[in-house]
């Protein structure tokens, strides 16, 4: 068992997903079996192997410093579930 309920809840908090107790139980079982299963990678000797982050062998393309986007704020806000006075609105945050 890699994970306990406490760890699951911590991860869920990091991922901002609320879990019911039932869901947490269920996920605990699944995630533990998945984590046990991926353990088999430890059989592989990866000393001196470079990690592969992206398969593309090309170099990072760079764009010119031109400001060209002409999106209106209406377009950007169009799909927002809560928008007020030209802003995205969220529940009040106390810093």
């Amino acid at each position, binding site marked *: 068992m890699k*994970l306990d309920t406490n*760890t*699951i809840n911590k*991860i*869920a*908090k*990091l*991922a*901002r*997903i*609320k*879990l019911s107790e039932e*869901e947490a139980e269920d*996920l605990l079982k*699944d*995630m533990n*079996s*998945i*984590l046990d*299963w*991926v*353990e*088999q*990678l*430890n*059989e*592989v000797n*990866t000393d001196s*192997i*470079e*990690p*592969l*982050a*992206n*398969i*593309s062998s*090309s170099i*990072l*393309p760079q*764009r010119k410093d031109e400001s060209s986007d002409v*999106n209106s704020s209406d*377009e950007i806000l*169009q*799909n*927002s*579930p*809560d928008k007020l006075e030209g802003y*995205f609105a*969220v*529940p009040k*945050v106390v810093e």
Partner: protein
Amino acid sequence: MEFKSISQLKSLLDENKISVKEIAETYIKKINENKDLNIFIYFNEDKIHDQVKETENLSNDNVLKGIPIAVKDLFCTKNMPTTAASKILENFKPTYESFVTQKLIDQGSIFVGKTNLDEFAMGSATNTSFFGNTINPLSKNNNPLAPGGSSGGSAAAVAADLCLGATGTDTGGSIRQPASFCGVVGIKPTYGLCSRWGIAAFASSLDQAGVFSKNVTDSSILLEVIAGHDQRDSTSSNVKIPSFSKNLNSDLRGKVIGIPKEYTVDGISDEINQVWEDAIKSLEKKGAKIKHISLPHTKYALPTYYIIAPAEASSNLARYDGVKYGYRAENPKSLDEMYELTRSEGFGKEVKRRILIGTYVLSAGYYDAYYLKAQKVRKLIANDFIEVFSDCDFILTPTAPSAAFSLNEKQDDPIKMYLNDVFTVPASLAGIPGISIPYGHDKEGLPLGIQLLGKHYNEQEIFNAAFALEKDYE
């Protein structure tokens, strides 16, 4: 009325034997007759008529003029909402058109609708969709079969003849496996060949767009259209796209096909091994040489994939937070509660599972043991392919470990589910192109697919081999 292929329908159109409008009406009718298969998340006849009007007067030089295409609902489209089969994208209407779908529009194709998929492309049966299962059109006798996944809706749309081509995305097998389950052709090209711009991301280092069609020629036509460099995607390849369809050549003399011993795995039915054997023999008969090869890290591909893909997904899906678009939970008391409830109510079980796995493997203290380790093993898997491709031209394997399974089968063991991708995942990790074509059937008459894998940017090679094999069933 049934049309065999894109090329056949295009000829009819070019000869004025049918109009764009008539084509559209034919397919609207078919789609309406097959609603019970739940293939489309979005289907709107008016939208099709609008496109007909815009397309009718285009020049016939547009290679896809009037051709009915289904679009996986992971591609953002301006004229149709985009959901990624998730509640969290409720009411989302993109103001932009994905690179791939724009290319299809530019060639005059008609989008018949947006197809169902596993939520955010996470699944192998199109059964994690917020909009319900899609049913494989080949299902018989009240035993609904899975179409495979995640691009199950697109594969099923082609199989049910509700379009002549469809877009898909393949992260670990999401085009090839449903193609195999539905008895159609599906190709995932080299990573980077088609821009990811405008496709809701699952796992960025693996996601790749591709197509489904009824035959190899049509796939080659479609891929030619959607491939190409895009400055807006930093991982898009800047390579010249060959004219795949014009270059199709079934002459395999002198070609060397690799048969990897690691793809003979326990629990695979004799039927699948038989189909594989038949394909090998056929290729030999056509002049190709057989070479037995080894891809020693194959067995580690699935666990590697199930670390890397969820890790990237956990970050890619952080943007679905109820602020800019999509679903937001009602009356949250604080910002954090808004996030937690929105994401809890908006995402389905499999997506949550993968987000949590991904969050865990990236978290402090576990990164090296899981994520970094997986990236290193990924390197070894990619190296395996580079090595064998120095003495073979392409690789032949089965596409999936089974034929389409029943939707009634219990799917509560995630690892068992993940094993569906056992033959498709290694190529995804290595970023090489793979195509699945139907080749034979199991004893219940369900199609079985065979997979051809090629070198980076060598789609032509696998198209040619697939083209040659396809002739065995004409």
